[in-house]
């Protein structure tokens, strides 16, 4: 959810930054109008609506309070399993509802890998090999409190100086 919001904001930013096509004769017309307008009695436009609009826009684009915590401290982790004989490997854990269909891993010469972006927290996970065999991550701490009879591992994403 947070990722989608950030992507949306990013798209808005890109849209606002896009150069606007302006008629080549615009400058000349504007300068002509200015020249024809008497300086005395010319009324200055009130600036406060523009300032307010800019402030709101800045708040929307840069403050983004709804996703600050979720994205600024998130970490991108690469999970790797060496399994040359495997036909398929999925990474399942607390970060993807333990759904094998959501995290199939890609292989290169028997080295299976995938990348996951995680918010701060402690996550349990395991590798599901060939859809039937559960394997813990040999390079990560084991989940000691495995209550379901199959091995799991844990990974922790810190929120400070990690």
């Amino acid at each position: 959810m947070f990722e989608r919001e950030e992507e949306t904001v990013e798209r808005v930013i890109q849209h606002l930054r896009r150069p606007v096509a302006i008629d080549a004769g615009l400058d000349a017309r504007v300068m002509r109008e200015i020249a024809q307008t008497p300086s005395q009695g010319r009324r200055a436009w009130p600036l406060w609506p523009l300032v307010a609009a800019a402030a709101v826009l800045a708040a929307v684009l840069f403050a983004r309070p709804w996703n600050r915590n979720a994205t600024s401290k998130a970490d991108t982790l690469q999970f790797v399993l060496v399994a040359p004989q495997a036909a398929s490997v999925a990474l399942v854990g607390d970060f993807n509802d333990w759904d094998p269909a959501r995290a199939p891993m890609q292989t290169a010469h028997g080295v299976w890998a995938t990348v996951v972006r995680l918010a701060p927290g402690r996550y349990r996970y395991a590798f599901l090999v060939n859809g039937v065999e559960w394997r813990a991550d040999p390079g990560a701490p084991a989940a000691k409190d495995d209550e379901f009879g199959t091995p799991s591992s844990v990974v922790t994403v810190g929120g400070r100086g990690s």
Partner: protein
Amino acid sequence: MILAALLLMTQVAAQDPRLERLDPDTRTAVAAVVDSAHGAGLPVEPIIQRALEGATKGAPGARIVAAVRRLAVDLGTARVALGTSASAPELEAAVAALRAGAAPEVLAHLRDVRRPPLTMALSVLADLVASGVPADSAAAAVLALAPKARDADLVEFRRAVERDIALGAPPGAATSVRLNAGALDVYGANSAANNPNSPRPRSRP
């Protein structure tokens, strides 16, 4: 009364479609635990995830229900130890530390000596015990490091201890040696996980 309770349970189950992966009886029981935890102000996502883990691993419904009930109780214990301001990740890590053998007093002490978040410190404590370090030694080490160490320092400490254990050092001795040697300053060069299977960060915020 019974009808109201049943309606409530049905409503809770309907609130999270992920629980539909459970069989109806298990779903009802898990939904009741989730609702109870929610009412007590405890985070429910860890409970849901534990139920989904059980479902994906094909565990019997009774075992799943027992697991989520136990987790809910432990989350409550963790909150008592850490206080009501503890975040969900902190509570989840605290549950791991408690299950590893850390006393609730250790968690409370940790809260007093380290500014939040405590998630990494609690996790390192649990992981050290999982590596074979006696719970008392692990708690003492983490409490000693907690006031000043960064999260990354704690992780490196854990890796160094695990590396020493893998090389044959007794877990308790490895912990105290690393702690007394002031290893935080020196093991940076060796800190990268040499094991190709370990999860590693691609980028740091």
